[in-house]
């Protein structure tokens, strides 16, 4: 019991069925207090279901939710130490900003003076001083989400749940709000659990990320680990701009595996993964690490090289993506910052050699 004090949320074998549909499939994990935690995954993967189970908006079909070591599985949301920020439309449209934020405190029958002070302070924290008398429909989408945030934070619960809080905002505003959320979380120091399908958003805000797909917890780790060293193939395909190549283990020794891609053999660190000769595996290389090795250049010895046919360049503003086709027909992408290096121009259809630093590819056995 002693160590669970710094575990804010723990779910054990948690499952949820909607009739015959299985939305969440026996998931277990725990979250340390004071962290900013993101649940990231494709739509319909079960992440929102998981969040709503933690918040008490859904009743688990099996398993339990512990908040600070206390089993709360049977409690409704108003009796859990959580509060929730919703995607949209969740402000009370018939109340002013001030009354929205004060709602929870009024339910607690806090003295009016205290309510006023706390509301004022919280509106200041989210950057909405002077908006007290506005009605929700008079606010922009970003401001509405700030009010929601204030309404939840003012309750001083120690776990804040955010269900796609930025999904209805445009890209620019979303970026600003991400930083804002991060800043506020650091300031209040409580646990944030943030559901999103947007990887950039998750990487910006979160200390730790859990990848949720098909009702399963796929992988969990720090934002950096998830991005740079994904363990699962699904994570590699979902996060970042990874090129995933299928192959067969041709040889394994000294913690390194040689993978036969069918048209080339490459060397990759096995990281103690349970791979044996003959196993079907995948390896992933992020597109920004992949290079087109020019004819005049002489790559370092540790680089892994594969042959390819140049297809086309796609200009994306900040970056340029070079699309090439491998001998087995797979198309992969090498991404470079526009104008950073004097890039060679390649003729579509010309033969090129692709390469990456030997330790930067990841091996996936599942």
């Amino acid at each position, binding site marked *: 019991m002693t160590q669970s004090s710094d575990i804010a949320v723990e779910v054990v074998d948690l499952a949820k069925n909607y009739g015959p549909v299985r939305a969440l499939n026996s998931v277990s994990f725990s979250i340390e207090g004071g962290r900013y935690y993101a649940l990231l995954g494709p739509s319909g993967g079960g992440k929102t279901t998981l969040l709503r189970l933690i918040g008490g908006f859904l009743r688990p079909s099996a398993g339990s939710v512990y908040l600070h070591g206390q089993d709360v599985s049977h409690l409704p949301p108003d009796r859990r130490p959580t509060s929730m920020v919703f995607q949209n439309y*969740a402000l009370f449209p018939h109340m002013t900003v001030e009354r929205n934020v004060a709602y929870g405190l009024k339910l607690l029958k806090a003295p009016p003076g205290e309510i006023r002070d706390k509301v004022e302070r919280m509106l200041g924290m989210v950057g909405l001083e002077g908006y007290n008398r506005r009605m929700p429909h008079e606010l922009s989408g970003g401001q509405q989400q700030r009010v929601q945030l204030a309404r939840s934070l003012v309750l001083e619960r120690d776990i804040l749940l955010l269900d796609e809080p930025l999904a209805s905002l445009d890209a620019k505003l979303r970026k600003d709000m991400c930083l804002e959320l991060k800043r506020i979380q650091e300031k209040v120091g409580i646990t944030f659990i943030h559901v999103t399908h947007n990887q950039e958003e998750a990487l910006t805000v979160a200390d730790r990320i859990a990848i949720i797909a098909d009702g399963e917890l796929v992988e969990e780790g720090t934002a950096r680990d998830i991005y740079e060293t994904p363990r699962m193939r699904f994570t590699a395909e979902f996060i970042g701009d990874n090129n995933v190549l299928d192959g067969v283990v041709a040889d394994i020794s000294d913690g390194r595996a040689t993978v036969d891609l069918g048209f080339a053999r490459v060397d990759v660190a096995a990281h103690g993964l349970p791979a044996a000769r003959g196993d079907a595996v995948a390896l992933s290389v992020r597109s920004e690490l992949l290079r087109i090795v020019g004819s005049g250049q002489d790559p370092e010895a540790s680089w892994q090289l594969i042959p390819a046919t140049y297809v086309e360049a796609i200009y994306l503003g900040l970056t340029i993506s070079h699309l090439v086709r491998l001998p087995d027909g797979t198309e992969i992408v090498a991404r470079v910052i526009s104008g950073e290096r004097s890039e060679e121009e390649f003729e579509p259809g010309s033969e090129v050699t692709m390469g990456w630093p030997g330790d930067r590819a990841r091996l996936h056995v599942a």
Partner: protein
Amino acid sequence: MYDDFANPWNIRLKWLYLLGVVFALLMPVFYTIYISFNQHGFGARIYDFTFDWYRVVLGDTLLVVSLKWTVYLALAAIAATIPMALLSAKFYKRTRRKVAFVALMLSPLFVPADIMGSALLVFFKNLAIGFVWLDEALGVYWFDGWFDLGFLTALIGQVIYVHPYAFIVILITMSRYRVQQTEAARGCGATAWQAFWQVEFPQIRVGVFSSCAFVTILSFNEAVRTALLKGGFDTFSNVLVAQMLNIGMSGESYAMAGIMSIVSMLVIGSVIVFTLLRTERLERRARAMAEPVMSS
């Protein structure tokens, strides 16, 4: 939706047709009211305006008593139907078997008054007999008189009749409500009841009020089911039917019909005016939303 290429005269003609149909539907009622103010009644060559027939109706103790019963029944129907319609709408939102539920709730619309009334009449008589039998079997008098024809049976008949209308109106209003608001309220620490009463109800109030108006009118106008299921009293429309069938049409009948239609029109008219004013307000709000207030 406007078609910029449509012939305006074509459209005007269609409007004329539409208003003509509305006129044809309403004209008989207004004609009845017109006759009810004639000293000489229907068919007379001369028209002398008078309130006499209304004075006769309102001076008739029997009719005033029946009017009283009508009001009681309408009030009881509101008290029973509106909470139940709210529960039904909530139930509809959360149930998985929506089609089966809605079929059950709306099918009374499709069962004609006389058929529904007869079936309920026989049902209540059987229930009453069953309860008497139960009392005899138990040797007690607890259930004597349960479901004997009376106010309660007439009320049940009316609730079955008006509930579908109240349910639909409330459901339509509720469909504009976002469930997230209830969840947000729960997240703020509200109980289910507090979330409903403080957050959801203020937003569906209009629907609740209009369904109150509908229930009032439908209950006020109802004649057939009540005639079969009542016991010991007559409602206003019961008396009117009896008069038409037994005595024939008199100036009094026209005045009674006049009272019934004027009351209905007043109630519905005020609901319509209120709704129009409200949509006007909502539109202004929508326009305000189209030009959001920028941060100061």
